């Protein structure tokens, strides 16, 4: 469904991602884990071209794109097949929760206001925010804002939703409600690529876990393979550090 081949990205001559291959099947939940600064978020941002890779190929929804020669139209096309949930929610501050969810449907997908409204209500209900549809982002908690942003991503019916550390900016007591919504999305059959530091959540929810290190895919496999049976030294080192810190 989504296929990345030989993706390379550099910032000002520094290699950030090197020769990344990644395959995601329809309905799969793929989690990217690894140390900070290792390129997980950059990889996610390459998929919707918020960062433009130097080279590489992507297939998504039956179409192939060459990153080194991708034009404006193809960029928009690719972006319209994906949606992203950001670490800082990135809601439109001057719009209410429901307007945030409706906007892209009307602007990008040219849906009527009524259609967009109904779809948005449905998605806001799914994340449990039907009581907050008319609230502005600054009237919502971080967890609620993030759930609005999940509803906004769902509403455009993308091929894949990219979650970029969706709980990292949240107070600990708000993490649970957002994880629950993500789980809900995963259960609905949506294809998901998730960058997270919530290891136990990653283990529970993922079909595939990708461990990244120094801009490369160090190891990938089923969650139990990575978390329990890995013999990759870097993976073990990372997980051990992680568990030690958690205790």
């Amino acid at each position, binding site marked *: 469904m989504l296929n990345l081949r030989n993706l390379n990205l550099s910032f000002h001559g520094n290699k950030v991602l090197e020769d990344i291959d990644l395959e995601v099947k329809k309905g799969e939940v793929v989690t990217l884990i690894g140390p900070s600064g290792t390129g997980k978020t950059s990889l996610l941002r390459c998929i*919707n071209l*918020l960062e433009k890779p130097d080279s590489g190929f992507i297939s998504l929804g039956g179409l192939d794109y060459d990153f080194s020669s991708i034009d404006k139209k193809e960029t*928009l096309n690719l*972006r*319209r097949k*994906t*949606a*992203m949930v*950001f670490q*800082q929610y*990135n*809601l*439109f*501050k*001057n719009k*209410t929760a429901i307007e945030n969810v409706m*906007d*892209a449907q009307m*602007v*990008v997908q040219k849906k009527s206001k009524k259609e967009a409204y109904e779809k948005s209500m449905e998605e806001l209900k799914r994340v449990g925010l039907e009581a907050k549809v008319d*609230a*502005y*982002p*600054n*009237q919502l908690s971080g967890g609620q804002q993030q759930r609005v*942003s999940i509803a*906004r991503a769902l509403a*455009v019916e993308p091929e894949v939703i*990219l979650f970029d550390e969706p709980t990292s900016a949240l107070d600990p007591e708000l993490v649970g409600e957002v994880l629950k919504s993500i789980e809900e999305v995963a259960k609905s059959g949506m294809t998901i690529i998730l960058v997270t530091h919530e290891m136990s959540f990653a283990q529970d929810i993922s079909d595939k876990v990708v461990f990244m290190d120094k801009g490369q895919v160090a190891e990938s496999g089923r969650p139990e393979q990575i978390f329990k049976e890995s013999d990759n030294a870097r993976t073990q080192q990372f997980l051990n550090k992680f568990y030690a810190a958690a205790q």
Partner: protein
Amino acid sequence: MFDIVTVFESLIEIVKVVPKTLFLALVILILSFILGAMLTYIQSLNIPVVKQIIAVLQSFLRGTPNVVLLYLVYYSLPLVVTSFLSLFGVGFDPASLNSAAVVIVTFSICYSVFQSEIIRGALHSLDKDQIEAAQSLGYSTSQTLRKVIIPQVMTEALPDTMNAFLIIIKALSLAFLVTVVDIFAQARLVGAQTFSYLEAFVAAALVYWVICGALTYVVNKLENRMRRGYV
């Protein structure tokens, strides 16, 4: 002695030029906003020599009194227009240049610098996150501009822009120097006719005050409405 009836009589005469004054100020506001937006845009491009030229221009405009600029334009604009038109073989009598044009040109240029600052500030207040969110949802550049950036920047720039409008209205009192009759100029004329300068200026002050008060009220209402729930 001070005569309240004369104040009222002057008031009636002065109010007659209020529409013209407001219209002039509005034209200047719009032109300076457009010029300011262009300045902001050009500066954001960071073109080496152009950037320095604009910086020098800005410092010049900030560092010279409006009166001086007004006279500068008053005496130079006819020459500029004449020589410009002669390039195309069109004859032009320098004396026929409307002095209102002089006022509009001068103040539009003067206040474009301030408008540019206002726009830059408003743009700065818009966080990049929202632009990325729009991009990630597949908004085109113009959709992002129309649906995300401009509505918020407008709201942000509104109070300062309206403040600039009030400043322009008051600054127009200098237009008298180049024979354009605004509120202040009218007060001088009325005063000169009756030798009741004090009453005329009291009336002028009242008119300015009422205009500014009313505009401030309207803008506050408008801003609250535009911002609705968000800060």
